[in-house]
């Protein structure tokens, strides 16, 4: 059967004498055909792909939107887009103009393409079971408030976003109402707002991604059952920047991630039933800021090293559990030599509670009086939450990163 199909599949070459434009080549193609696109610059956007074809660029032909149009719209199932360079899409304040739009289609593969100066790069809209792999997105929008997202998915399901690089957009990867999807091995750097932005998206997993130097880090909001494994959250600095901002998240796992050089590693608000384990928090301003609106958070076997503050909170009621973590600020002892400290550790300092209420107090940080009141609070806790403590602090850091 496969042989018969293969024999039936023909090919059409765009940019040739017979078919000078991509549109004419698509018009001549049948479902299952391959359209080869010769290396040229094509300015015929918007191009509508309404047949199940393979569109294959040879030596990266350029599809230029002349800063006016959406470049390509896919309306058929099973389309493959490979080796094309999408350039200069239109920009608009009212419409989300995209380089490549996946419009109510399924089983589409978009791989090894380049997107430069597109408002939105790939825009999935009611897309199902599509793969977006090994593409690069680079935008140099002058006004960061009017740039769009690199990979944007809305009301989609079972998407795989893998091995892409996104730079200079508003959000690197943006998910809104996207379910059962995987985001793996992507790198987003230097985007104006978030490296990754999740909203109302349940049952998604992101693995082995790197989010570096984005305006405000990563935001995961209003979602359930999110799994985050082995990601790197680096250098998100600024007053409202977070490694991850978790807002109204429940039933999720965060494991094996690295948080380094962020203003705040994890900021958590209104979240419940989250299990954090084997994460590395290094050289952050705050490793974690956990608002009192969080409950049933379990933090275990993670390393906290060289952070200015380990954990801070704004309330006194604590319904969360910390155990077996390594804290470099721990000054206890281990007489029975079982690797677990014999006295519990309180990761919240009095001063972090004060700055949580009055941010300007930060100017007194590392002054003699502050260290004195922190020491006094450690001996006789009065203001810091009594229940916020690690009863089994590890004496040695875990080897977490390869």
């Amino acid at each position, binding site marked *: 059967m496969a042989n018969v199909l293969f024999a039936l599949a023909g090919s059409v070459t765009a940019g040739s004498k017979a078919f000078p434009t991509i549109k004419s080549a698509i018009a001549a193609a049948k479902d299952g055909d391959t359209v080869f696109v010769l290396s040229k610059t094509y300015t015929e956007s918007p191009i509508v792909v309404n047949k199940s074809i393979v569109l294959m660029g040879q030596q990266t032909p350029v599809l230029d939107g002349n800063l006016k149009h959406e470049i390509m719209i896919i309306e058929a199932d099973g389309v493959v887009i490979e080796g094309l360079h999408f350039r200069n899409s239109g920009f608009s304040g009212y419409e989300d103009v995209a380089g490549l739009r996946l419009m109510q289609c399924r089983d589409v593969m978009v791989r090894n393409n380049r997107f430069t100066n597109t408002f939105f790069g790939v825009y999935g809209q009611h897309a199902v079971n599509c793969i977006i792999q090994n593409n690069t997105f680079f935008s140099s929008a002058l006004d960061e*408030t009017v740039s769009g997202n690199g990979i944007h998915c809305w009301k989609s399901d079972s998407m795989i976003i893998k091995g892409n690089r996104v730079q200079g957009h*508003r959000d690197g990867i943006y998910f*809104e109402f996207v379910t059962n999807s995987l985001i793996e091995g992507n790198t987003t750097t230097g985007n104006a*707002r978030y490296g990754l932005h999740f*909203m*109302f998206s349940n049952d998604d997993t992101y693995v082995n991604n790197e989010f570096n130097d984005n305006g405000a880090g990563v*935001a995961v*909001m209003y979602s359930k059952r999110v799994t985050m494994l082995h990601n790197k959250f680096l250098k998100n600095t*600024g007053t409202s920047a977070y490694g991850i*901002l978790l807002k109204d998240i429940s039933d999720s796992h965060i494991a094996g991630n690295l948080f380094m050089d962020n203003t705040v590693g994890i900021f958590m608000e209104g979240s419940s039933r989250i299990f954090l384990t084997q994460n590395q928090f290094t050289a952050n301003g705050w490793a974690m800021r956990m608002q009192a609106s969080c409950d049933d958070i379990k933090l275990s076997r993670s390393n906290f090293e060289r952070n200015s503050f380990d954990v801070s909170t704004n309330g006194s009621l604590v319904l969360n559990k910390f155990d077996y973590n390594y804290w470099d600020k721990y000054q206890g002892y281990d007489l029975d030599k079982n690797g677990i400290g014999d006295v519990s550790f309180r990761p919240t300092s009095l001063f972090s509670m004060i700055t949580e209420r009055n941010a300007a107090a930060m100017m007194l940080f590392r002054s003699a009086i502050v260290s004195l009141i922190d020491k006094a609070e450690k001996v006789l806790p009065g203001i810091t939450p009594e229940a916020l403590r690690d009863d089994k602090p590890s004496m040695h850091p875990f080897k977490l990163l390869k």
Partner: protein
Amino acid sequence: MIEKQKPDKMTIRLILLWMVAALVACSSGPKPIDYGKEECVFCKMTIMDKQFGCQVVNTKGKAFNFDDVSCLLSYLGTTKPEEIGAIYVPDYTGLNELLPAAEMHFVKSELLHSPMAGNMAAFSGKDSAQHYAGNLKGTMVTWENLISKDE
């Protein structure tokens, strides 16, 4: 003997100048939002979109900024009504200047894609609101509808 000293003209001028400056500082009206830098008071997201960034100014004159009308409404639900001085929303068309919410006409449409999926845009003119409601397959809503729904 103590000589009665008259304040010189310079001092009077300085005092007057100071009073004028103080008055200017107290003036009502929306405060500019620093787009791309400030975070939404309610959802903590960075405010980027000038078409949806909105503001509550409390009776003491402090501004609270939001990235979406839905965040503003949620905030109103958690705040005492007597503390709220003024509410400003941007005109969706044109320069997106912040205008008093009660005088605006709102359009609700999923096609707006606002930052927090509140999907409400405000218009100063009823004509343009109707025009966009038609284009975006949306419905017209008044400010009274929006706040009463929230309560």
